[in-house]
Structures are given as structure tokens and as C-alpha cells.
């Protein structure tokens, strides 16, 4: 044994070396890899094994060792168990289904699995469980299934687990082995039964129906006194999967499960029982009651894990039995204060389950308070972070703080969304279910707009998407619910004012409070709470004024919507001068074009609707504001400003009322599906082409018309031609809109006409998309008048916030976003269905009629095998060569292999010498 190993670096040395070279670890590893590659080529087994061992370590550290795959196989095939063990470990760790030398392992696996030495067999099985691919599985399934009958329980157990992986990659195996597999469920050795149950449980998840026939055996195991906890967990889980398919099973399960839930001291088993009850035994009151009780205990437990899991399964229970939620209400709300955001999120999911009309205000108040608290906590953290810059807070702690900071965001979002759920308009074909479920009286709506929308808008740390929802709901509720428009207008102005900089947040508070007392006099509870939260909010504000004023807290969308509400219902404004000031002073820095247009339009509307004595005060304000926007960077804003300025100058000195017709008539909510109700005119002909292109494709035709020489554009190329036709498909659409475009075209001007008709190069105001993103008031009005049939039932239609024009609505209904979603969903359904189908097909009747199914499958398989044999002779060899040839190209040349060719003495595979030569050749 006096060989190279004496001078070889051991694994321990390597580990120490890496630890000593912290600064230049990569450099060090690189030199070591070169060294190890050299060692790999050694003829000495022990040396080679140590080299592979070191590589395994490097692989774990994240370095690629793909170059050594072949050497790993060499070590695997060593007759010495010490080396073999290392080889198998390295293979399991580093090989993937795409490893090209994987095919070379088939024989090695076969050899070791049939070996008399138990450890060889065991090692091979462990490795195979990780590596098995469809191809390996096909070749090795007979060997593995033979091992199911091994005299050693240890091997039977391992073979079962390998079989599971094998079936997953190669489902056809199951029918072949089902009989043997079923025997293992009644094995003498409990650990083998346990493995068999585990595998059944996993397989049943892919295709539960095929495993129903095993239910009696499993039931016996469940009732057996000496089943281990782990096995019981698996059986109980399996039952949870099977009961929905077989109702009779549920009836039989109630008794043993409740007994278990009463007697077991293992929390994991108890939890599993509860899960199974929530999955399959929801119609058995006895089980449900006990389950709720146990889960309640979990939620109360000091152990955070039990709390989390309790909440998790409670949700499934509550969906069927809402009364359980009420019993545990306080418990759940307490969990909202937990330190762990995961627990809070779960609790929040439950909270939504017990919101009813009666509890709505109480629960919302609690949620809003939690939301404010979360924000103020965050500020404390933020301050700590900033002050930590020069003090002693170390890096890790800072990291922790900042990550804690970011992590709260989803919780706040979820809280806010929960609060906003109430204000969602529900659409349904059933009139009884349509509308706002939780809000009915004007008082309710006023409360919602004031407390929830106003409250959320003022919380500084919410993400923009929440603000957008607030804005949309403000708009929608205002237009849907006439009774509360005055309140909405007030809130909208308060929101706008809050961010003008001139007014502090106290103004909003006052406005909110006033409204609140007006509408909520009866509700003392919420009143006091409002006071409380106000003071809380103010504290936050005064604490960190800089952070508030520097950030645009009102999102562009929310500001735009608020401005629209204030403008559209301007006659409800109490003090027009003040309102006008608020609107015109609103900082436009953070607003996009659409929002700026809305604010501008709102200012004009306020001006138009003001009382006579205020006109003179307001005129200069509005005019100045309009003028200031003449040089806006946005074309739309400029255009609108020019337009208004012209009108304002035109009517200067004359009666203000001249402007009133501009905004006459009220907007009515129009459903985006309204277009479908408009009858199609019988003389509308959509089939005849506007442009007769003859036999040419449109593209060629256009080219001819324009007179561009064809060869320059390479029409011949199929792909590009196709693409171009696609691109011009939209031109056809545009052409149909304005038929003058090409028809009149003189050859010289045809080019420009074409460009103008391309989507995007449109005159924007004519494009439906343009309207979709802004609120061009005049067009809206016209559009509304044009589609009377859409207005029959006012409440029926959704007022699409931001997409007010019917033209836009048509576009949306054409694109049908809802339909798209659906088809997406369907697609995923399909995919998953296909996925399970594969198993279903293979598993079907696997246990029901073992005889027949097995026979036919075996026959099929035999045929396939015979076929394979025929092809086989030259097959594997050429494949191997192909595989190795690929190595040549794929291998990154980590190492300089400019030494002698490898001597492949130790290898047992016949192809080895050839391969090694290839390797050296390739890498030089």
C-alpha cells in the first residue's frame, strides 16, 4: 500500500487549505482542481477514490465537476467497497439526467444490485433512487422488482423506495410490479410495510382512484395496534386523499380517527388527523367538532409552529363550517399581533371568513388599526436603520432590519386588500347576488368611503397598487351610489388637499371627522376609535415629517380619480373657491399625462359650476393654471390646455353660463359588455374587402402600389414574408376604419399613407387605445349618447374606472380580458389533466384486476423489449460514442490536459479505453 497516496492531499487537507485561503478561494480551488484532475487519471484506485471524494466536496461548495463524470463511474465500479461507496455518493451528488455518461452506469447498477454483498446492493439502490431516468428505469425495472422479494428486509425496503421513483419516471412499471408491491403491504417486517405505505401514499397523490382497492388493507393497518406513528401519519394522509372518492370510507374512518385524535400524544399525528378531517370528513359533526377543538388548541399553543399549522388547517375547516370561525374569533384576531408575518398572513385569511354585515365595522376597525400600527412600527425600524449609519449597528443586524422592513410589505398589502374587499362591486347574473354585499344603507357607504377609503389613502406606506384600488373604488362608488356623492366629493377634495403641501394632514382629519360625526352619530364605537386612530396617525406624522413630504403619497391614479370625482360632481362642492384652489395647486410633478388632464378638466368643471359671485375670483386662477400647462411636456395636456385657454379667452367678459353646456348631462355607468347589446345593422358588410388585392398577398400588393422594387425587400424569404403579412394584418383593420387612406394614394404619397395607418402612428385621439387610458370628456358624452341600449339598467353595468368611454369599452370587450384569463386557466387545467392522465392510464386497474392488466402490459413490454433487442446490438455502443463525443464539445476546459493519454486499467466497462482516448484528444 505504499503508493501515491502518501503524497496525495487528503480531503482533510483540502478542507483546511480552503479554509486557510479565504481571500483567494477561487484561485486556490482552481489550482486544486487541476491537481485533482491529474490524480483522477492515476492508475491507483485509492488515489482515484480520494480524488473523487475531494471533488464531491468541491461540488458541494458550488464548483462544477462535470469533467470528472467518467472518473466517478470508474470509482463506482471499483470492487473495493471503500471506493465504491465514494463513487456512488459522488454520482448521486453530481449526476443529473442530462449527464451523458449516465448510460454507462446501467451495467454497473445491474451488477451491484444482483451482488451477493448487501452493502453493494444497498449503495446501488440509494444512488439509483436519485438518478433514475426513464431510460435507466426501463432497463432496470426487472432487477428492482426482483429485489422486492429479497430475503433481507433492508433491501426490500430500499427497493420499494427506488420503485417509487422509477414509477414516477416510467409509469408503465406499475402494472408489472403491482402484485409484488401489494404483497409488501402485508410484509412481516414493519419497516418494509412502512416504506410500502409511504410509496402508496405518494403514488396515490398522482392518481388516487387506482388505489381505492387498497383501502381495506390500509384500513387494517390503521386499526392495527403496532403501527408506528410515522406509518399512521402516512395512512391517515392517504385516507384523506381517498375519502373524497369513496364516501363509505369516510363513515368507517370517523371512529378510528377520533380515537386517535383523543389518544395520541404525537402532535404530528394529531395534526395529520385534523388535516384529513378537513379534507374528507367535513360532513361528520363529531369529527369536525373534535378537529375544531384540537386546532383551537394549536392556535393557542405557545409553539409558533403549532399556531401556524393550526391556522392553516382551520381555514379549510372554516370554509365548510363558518360557525367554527366565530367560536375562535378572538383567538384568530390575537394571532394578527404575532411577531411572525407568516402567522399573521394565515390569520388574516381566516379573518375574511367571519366578516359579516354585523361584524364588518368592528373587524374593519381592528384591521385598520393593525395596518396603522404596522406602518408606525416600520418607521421605528427605518429610523433605527438611518441613525445606525454612524453608530454601532453592525452589518448583519442592518441586513436583518432591512429585510424585516421589506417583509412587512406583503402583510400590509394583504390587510389593505382585505379592507377593500367590501367595496368591490360584485357582478353576477343573479340580481340577488349583485352589488355590494356588505354595504346597503347610505350610512354604510358613507362609513366605507370615510373610514376605509379615506383611512387607507392617508396611510403613507401602502404600495401604489393599493392606492390605485382606493382611487378606482372612490370613482366607482361615487358614480354608482348617488346618495353619497356629497361625501365622496368632500373626501376627494380632502385627499387632494392633503398633498398640496399648503395644508397639513390635520385638514383631512378634520374633514374626515366632521363627516364621520355627521353620518355615524349612532355608532359611538367607531367614533371613539376614529379619534384614537387619528391621534395615532398624527403621532406617526409628526414623527417623520420629512419622509412624508418628500414622497408622492397620492398615486397618479388616485389623484386623477379624486380630481375627476371633485370635478364631475362639482355642483355638490360647498366652497368652490377653496376647491378650485385645491385642485389647481395640486403638485403635478408626479402625475402622468392622463392624471394631469383629469386635474385640468376638473379645475374647469369646478369653475363652470361655481356660483356667480365667485366667478371673478376663480377666473384668473383657472386661466393661470391653464396657461401654466401650455408648456407641459405631455402633448395631451398641452392640447387640452390650449383648448380650454381658447374657450376661456373666448368667453371672457360675457356670461359664465355660456360654458355650462360643455359639461351638461350626467355620466352613467356603462358596462364594458354593453357593446354586445347593440344590434348589428343588417347592411353592415364586413366580408367584402375594401381593397381588392387580387391573388397577391396584401404585402405584395402594397409593394406594387408603392412601387418599391421587390428584390430589395426579399419577399422570397418565407419566414419574413409571413411575418410581414402578420404585421400588415393590423393595417387591414386600420384601412377599414378609414378607407380613403390607400385608395386615393398617388404612388408618391402612398408610402406616407401607409405609415400613418400603422398602429401607433395613428393620430392618437382617434385611437381607441388613447381613450382607454384617459378621460376625454367630450367623447365620453357623445359615446354615451350613442349607445342608448347599454343604459337600460343602470345598476347592471359596471362603471369601468379609467375606461369611461364606450369606445374604450368596446375595445375591452373585443379583447375580452376575462375570456383570456379563462382560457389560460383552461390551459393549465388541460396540462395538469394531461399530466395525471399519464399516470391514470398506467395505474388504471393496477390493483383491481392484477391478472389481466399485468398480462397485457407484460405482453406489450415484451414486445418492446424484443424490438429493442433487435435494434440494440449496435445501439448502445454508438450511443456511448455519441455521448462521449458530446462531452468533447460541452466540457469547459477547466484543466489543461496536455499530458499522456489516460491509462484506463481499472475500468470494467469495455468502452472505457476508447472513451479515455477520446477525452484526451478532445481536451488537448
Amino acid at each position, binding site marked *: 500500500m505504499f503508493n501515491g497516496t502518501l503524497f496525495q492531499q487528503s480531503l482533510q487537507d483540502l478542507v483546511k487549505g480552503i479554509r486557510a485561503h479565504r481571500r483567494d478561494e477561487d484561485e486556490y480551488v482552481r489550482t486544486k482542481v487541476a491537481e485533482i484532475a491529474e490524480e483522477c487519471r492515476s492508475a491507483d484506485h485509492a488515489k482515484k477514490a480520494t480524488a473523487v471524494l475531494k471533488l464531491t466536496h468541491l461540488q*458541494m461548495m458550488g464548483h462544477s465537476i462535470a469533467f470528472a463524470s467518467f472518473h466517478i463511474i470508474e470509482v463506482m465500479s471499483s470492487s473495493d467497497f471503500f471506493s465504491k461507496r465514494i463513487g456512488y455518493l459522488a454520482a448521486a*451528488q453530481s449526476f443529473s439526467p442530462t449527464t451523458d455518461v449516465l448510460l454507462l452506469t446501467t451495467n454497473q447498477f445491474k451488477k451491484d444490485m444482483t451482488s451477493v454483498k448487501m452493502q453493494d446492493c444497498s449503495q446501488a439502490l440509494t444512488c439509483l433512487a436519485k438518478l433514475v431516468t426513464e431510460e435507466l428505469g426501463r432497463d432496470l425495472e426487472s432487477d428492482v422488482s426482483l429485489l422486492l422479494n429479497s430475503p433481507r428486509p433492508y433491501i426490500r*425496503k430500499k427497493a420499494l423506495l427506488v420503485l417509487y421513483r422509477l414509477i414516477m419516471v416510467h409509469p408503465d412499471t406499475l402494472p408489472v410490479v403491482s402484485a409484488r408491491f401489494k404483497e409488501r403491504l402485508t410484509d412481516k417486517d414493519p419497516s418494509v410495510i412502512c416504506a410500502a405505505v409511504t410509496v402508496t401514499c405518494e403514488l396515490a397523490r398522482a392518481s388516487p382512484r387506482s388505489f381505492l382497492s387498497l383501502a381495506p388493507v390500509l384500513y387494517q393497518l390503521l386499526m392495527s395496534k403496532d403501527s408506528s406513528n410515522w406509518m399512521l401519519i402516512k395512512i391517515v394522509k392517504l385516507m384523506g386523499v381517498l375519502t373524497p372518492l369513496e364516501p363509505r370510507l369516510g363513515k368507517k374512518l370517523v371512529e378510528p380517527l377520533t380515537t386517535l385524535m383523543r389518544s395520541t400524544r404525537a402532535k404530528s399525528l394529531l395534526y395529520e388527523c385534523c388535516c384529513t378531517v378537513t379534507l374528507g370528513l367535513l360532513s361528520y359533526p363529531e369529527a369536525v367538532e373534535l378537529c375544531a377543538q384540537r386546532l383551537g388548541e394549536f392556535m393557542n399553543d405557545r409553539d*409558533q409552529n403549532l399556531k*401556524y399549522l393550526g391556522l392553516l388547517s382551520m381555514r379549510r375547516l372554516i370554509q365548510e363550517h363558518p360557525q367554527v370561525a366565530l367560536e375562535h374569533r378572538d383567538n384568530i384576531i390575537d394571532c394578527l399581533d404575532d411577531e411572525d408575518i407568516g402567522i399573521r398572513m394565515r390569520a388574516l385569511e381566516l379573518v375574511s371568513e367571519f366578516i359579516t354585515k354585523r361584524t364588518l365595522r368592528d373587524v374593519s376597525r381592528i384591521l385598520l388599526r393593525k395596518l396603522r400600527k404596522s406602518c408606525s412600527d416600520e418607521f421605528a425600524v427605518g429610523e433605527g436603520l438611518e441613525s445606525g449609519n454612524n453608530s454601532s449597528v453592525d452589518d448583519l443586524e442592518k441586513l*436583518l432590519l432591512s429585510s424585516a422592513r421589506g417583509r412587512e410589505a406583503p402583510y400590509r398589502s394583504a390587510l389593505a386588500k382585505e379592507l377593500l374587499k367590501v367595496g368591490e362591486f360584485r357582478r353576477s347574473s343573479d340580481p340577488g347576488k349583485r352589488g355590494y354585499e356588505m354595504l346597503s344603507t347610505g350610512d354604510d357607504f358613507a362609513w366605507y368611503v370615510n373610514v376605509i377609503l379615506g383611512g387607507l389613502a392617508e396611510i403613507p406606506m401602502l404600495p401604489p397598487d393599493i392606492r390605485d384600488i382606493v382611487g378606482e373604488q372612490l370613482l366607482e362608488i361615487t358614480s354608482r351610489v348617488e346618495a353619497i356623492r356629497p361625501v365622496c366629493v368632500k373626501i376627494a377634495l380632502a385627499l387632494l388637499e392633503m398633498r398640496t403641501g399648503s395644508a397639513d394632514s390635520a385638514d383631512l382629519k378634520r374633514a374626515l371627522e366632521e363627516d364621520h360625526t355627521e353620518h355615524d352619530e349612532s355608532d359611538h364605537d367607531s367614533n371613539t376609535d376614529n379619534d384614537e386612530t387619528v391621534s395615532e396617525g398624527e403621532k406617526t406624522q409628526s414623527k417623520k415629517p420629512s419622509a412624508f413630504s418628500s414622497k408622492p403619497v397620492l398615486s397618479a391614479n388616485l389623484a386623477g380619480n379624486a380630481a375627476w370625482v371633485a370635478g364631475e360632481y362639482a355642483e355638490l362642492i360647498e366652497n368652490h373657491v377653496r376647491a378650485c384652489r385645491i385642485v389647481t395647486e395640486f403638485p403635478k410633478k408626479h402625475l402622468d399625462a392622463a392624471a394631469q388632464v383629469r386635474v385640468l378638466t376638473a379645475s374647469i368643471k369646478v369653475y363652470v359650476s361655481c356660483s356667480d359671485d365667485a366667478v371673478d375670483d376663480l377666473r384668473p386662477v383657472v386661466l393661470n393654471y391653464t396657461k401654466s400647462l401650455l408648456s407641459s411636456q405631455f402633448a395631451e395636456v398641452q392640447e387640452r390646455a390650449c383648448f380650454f385657454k381658447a374657450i376661456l379667452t373666448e368667453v371672457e367678459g360675457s356670461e359664465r353660463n355660456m360654458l355650462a353646456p360643455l359639461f351638461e348631462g350626467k355620466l352613467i355607468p356603462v358596462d364594458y359588455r354593453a357593446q354586445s347589446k347593440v344590434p348589428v345593422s343588417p347592411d353592415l358588410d364586413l366580408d367584402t374587402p375594401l381593397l381588392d388585392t387580387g391573388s397577391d398577398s396584401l404585402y405584395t400588393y402594397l409593394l406594387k402600389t408603392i412601387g418599391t422594387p421587390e428584390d430589395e425587400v426579399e419577399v422570397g424569404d418565407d419566414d419574413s414574408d409571413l411575418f410581414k403579412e402578420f404585421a400588415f394584418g393590423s393595417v387591414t383593420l386600420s384601412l377599414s376604419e378609414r378607407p380613403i387612406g390607400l385608395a386615393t394614394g398617388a404612388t408618391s404619397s402612398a408610402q406616407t399613407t401607409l405609415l400613418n395607418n400603422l398602429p401607433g402612428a395613428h393620430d392618437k385621439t382617434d385611437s381607441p387605445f388613447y381613450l382607454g387610458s384617459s378621460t376625454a370628456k367630450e367623447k365620453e358624452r357623445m359615446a354615451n349618447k350613442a349607445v342608448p341600449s347599454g343604459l337600460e339598467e343602470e345598476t347592471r353595468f359596471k362603471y369601468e374606472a379609467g375606461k369611461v368611454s364606450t369606445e374604450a369599452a368596446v375595445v375591452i370587450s373585443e379583447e375580452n380580458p376575462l375570456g383570456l384569463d379563462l382560457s389560460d386557466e383552461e390551459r393549465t387545467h388541460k396540462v395538469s389533466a394531461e399530466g395525471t392522465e399519464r399516470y391514470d392510464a398506467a395505474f388504471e386497474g393496477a390493483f383491481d384486476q392484477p391478472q389481466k392488466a399485468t398480462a397485457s402490459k407484460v405482453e406489450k413490454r415484451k414486445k418492446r423489449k424484443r424490438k429493442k433487442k433487435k435494434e440494440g446490438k449496435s445501439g448502445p455502443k454508438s450511443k456511448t460514442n455519441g455521448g462521449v463525443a458530446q462531452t468533447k464539445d460541452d466540457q469547459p476546459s477547466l484543466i489543461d490536459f496536455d499530458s499522456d493519454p489516460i491509462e484506463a486499467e481499472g475500468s470494467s466497462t469495455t468502452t472505457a479505453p476508447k472513451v479515455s482516448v477520446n477525452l484526451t484528444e478532445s481536451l488537448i
Partner: protein
Amino acid sequence: MIHWILLINRQGKVRLSKWYESFTETERSAILRDVQSHVLTRSSKMCNVVDRKDNKIVYKRYASLYFIACIDADENELAMMELLHVFVEVLDSYFGNVCELDLIFHFTRAYWILDEMFSGGELLECDKSAVLAAVYSKDAAAEPVPEFAPKTPSGAHVASASHSSRHR
């Protein structure tokens, strides 16, 4: 099933990584990054379950080492925690008061122990002494003088005898 098991220290260094599914290099590093940012930053007062995409990460911390496993969403989290604990107990009896350094210098042995507990992402054996017995028997086959042997001569006997013992 178990998708992967990782042993990571507080600094984020990997001490053991077992992937029961074939992940690409980039997926592995993405998982590692996720774990470092989502698990290592959790305080001791938080629960030991974290959602990750469709799966769940279950972890337990022992001294400076995190034992982390990723399981299917419908798998039993509590049972997985118990299994991680059994693994630690086995390591502890095998190395005798195990510490991080043991795992650094004998990382292959940690893998071999793990392989006796789990195979292909499924539980193979949850009985501590049965796992130990299996490892010892293989050590004996591989090394003429095993570096780690049962502490008492009766240890091996007890281990093999309890091979079929219950864990109730």
C-alpha cells in the same frame, strides 16, 4: 416528498446539500439565495415553516447550523421537523457530541447517514438505532478499522436488535 435537504451555517456556508430532484446549477443557487434571505434572517420567535412557491421549507436550528428541508405543500411539517431532529440525534451519537467541524471534515459520513434515513426523497428509516446500525455495518465493510464505531460493544447489538422496534 422531500425535494432537498440543506445544512447551512449562520454565515450561509453550505455544510451538506442533498437534492432529491435534479435541479440545474442556476436553480440550486437560486434556492440557496432564497434560503439565505428567507430562513437565516428569521428570528427564533418565528415559526419554522416558510412557504416557497408551491412547496414548503421546514427548518430547525441547532447551535450555528440550520437543518433545512423542502417538502411538498401537503406533506406533514411537524413530522418533517421530527425527522430532522432524529437526523441530528443520529449524527450526535455517531460523532459523539457532534459539532459543525465534524460535519466539515467528515461530510461524506453525514451524507451516508442521511442516505440511511432518506432515499429518493422519501423516508427510509426513522428509527435512530436502526439507522446507526446500517451505517456501522457499512463502515465495517469499507474500512478495516472503522474510524467511528459504536461506543460500547453492546451498542451494535442493541442497534441491530432494535432494528424492528417501534417508534410510538
